[in-house]
């Protein structure tokens, strides 16, 4: 327990000392918000968005983007680099279990992701007076489920791919289309109908749907499919992550 605490605290410090990771988690989403705010700030609500403005829809979508970035980039790159550089090798000679190593990552990246979302929501409130009709706790629950279900992807990629470099490239190649097609970085309503169909096969879509729904105050029962898919990913993620973990 003591080692988990120490390790988590250490990883948090290391996360914040790494400018690239901190930028993509905390600053980049804000930049996206301001760009979209500039473009769509005054556009009337898109059809099918329950009378919410573009920015109101954007905040939960961008939160999903943060989840995608941290889950697939931050975790993948950190774990793959740790393995390639022999950092895990050094840890392997101690009694510390892989579970603790992974748990510390999960806690740190989760907190950073939450911080990223908090910044988004605060900026949205401050500059665009976004409308939030949901229940904060319920939103937090959805956010937690979405995050944890995505972290598994990061661990699996890091475990399966041979080097940090390939892990980073594969994660990027998977992530970018996912961000666009899921409607996380770009309002899905603005895309052609055929492309909207593709989004059903994109895991991040379910995070976007769930967060947008909870943000708009819809009940969980409207989102059983999303919850089902994400819960499935979470379980698979834990099982496969544990199986694919390699010290070296």
């Amino acid at each position, binding site marked *: 327990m003591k080692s988990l605490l120490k390790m988590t605290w250490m990883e948090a410090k290391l996360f914040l*000392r790494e400018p690239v990771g901190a930028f993509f988690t905390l600053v980049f989403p804000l930049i996206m918000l301001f760009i979209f705010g500039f473009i769509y700030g005054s556009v009337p609500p898109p059809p099918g968005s329950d009378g919410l403005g573009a920015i109101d829809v954007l905040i939960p979508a961008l939160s999903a983007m943060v989840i995608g970035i941290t889950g697939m980039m931050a975790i993948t790159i950190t774990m793959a680099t740790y393995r390639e550089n022999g950092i895990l*090798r050094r840890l392997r000679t101690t*009694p510390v279990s892989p579970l603790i190593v992974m748990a510390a990552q999960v806690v740190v990246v989760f907190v950073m992701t939450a911080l990223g979302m908090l910044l988004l929501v605060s900026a949205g409130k401050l500059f665009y007076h976004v409308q939030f009709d949901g229940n904060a706790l319920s939103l937090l629950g959805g956010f937690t489920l979405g995050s944890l279900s995505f972290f598994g992807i990061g661990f699996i990629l890091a475990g399966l791919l041979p080097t940090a470099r390939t892990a980073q490239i594969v994660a990027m190649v998977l992530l970018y289309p996912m961000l666009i097609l899921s409607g996380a970085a770009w309002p899905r309503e603005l895309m052609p109908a055929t492309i909207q169909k593709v989004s059903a096969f994109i895991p991040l879509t379910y995070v976007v749907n769930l967060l947008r729904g909870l943000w708009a105050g819809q009940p969980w029962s409207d989102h059983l499919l999303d919850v089902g898919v994400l819960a499935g990913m979470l379980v698979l993620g834990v099982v496969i992550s544990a199986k694919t973990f390699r010290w070296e």
Partner: protein
Amino acid sequence: MDPILQVEGLHKVYGATVAVEQVSFEVREGEIFGMVGPNGAGKTTTIECLEGLRKPDAGRVRVLGVDPHCEGQNLCLRVGMQLQQSNLPDRMRVWEALDLYASFYLKPADWKELLVELGLEQKRNTPFSKLSGGQKQRLFIALALLPNPQLVFLDELTTGLDPQARHAIWELVRAVRAGGKTVILTTHFMEEAERLCDRVAILDHGRIVALDNPANLIHSLEAEQRVSFSLDDGLSPALEKALSSAGRLEVQGERVTVHGKTDRQLPLVSEVVSLLTGQGTPFRDLRTEQPDLEDVFLSLTGRALRE
């Protein structure tokens, strides 16, 4: 007293490469045991089988009475390891690394003391990537000592260090042993093995080609000692005759070299000096050359160790 570590018939193959073949030895409590050999001799493979990090293909390994491969968890509480290839995150500071690694053990050594003992006090806030090679190695020794181990493995501790840093590390290793710990180390510096180790196993192509204490290894060579000196007045026939009794002579201008055998009562040098002074011959630049482990390796394998 039971040996602290036993290896019998250790065998490890990677594909078509036989990395370690029929390696057997024992390590006694309190000794500094060294494995020397050229690159690819199988030192790391052997030591990592002892550490439980690699699984032997055949052979029996007992470390502190247990099989390291099956009881790694138990063993890593009592054994300290420094690996040839391992790292810490670039931005982790020295004190943070020690503090973190100390939290993995129930009764760790006091890392603040280790910081001082290993001369890292000045560097406590330095990030890992900003440490020099020698400082990184000191930090890795400190990490290896955190569990208060009975046995410490050090793999290529001084490779890449300058001679001064290397000597400082030797002092640290001696201090570790003086603290009652057993040390097993690998190196490809024969001088290091000779100066630091109580017993040395010489490895080549995955096999142990010799195992003994450095003095015996060198003695077993029966290699010749050499003494050379310069004479201003040249070699007189009387002196030549007297010196010949000590060994074969080689004369180059005013420089004279005496090649003697090792199996002698007196050291060659004292015999030569007493002959010279007995005849009242003035001499200068007297030099002696002893065979060392380097010569032992050369004579065992027919190759020089140096790349």
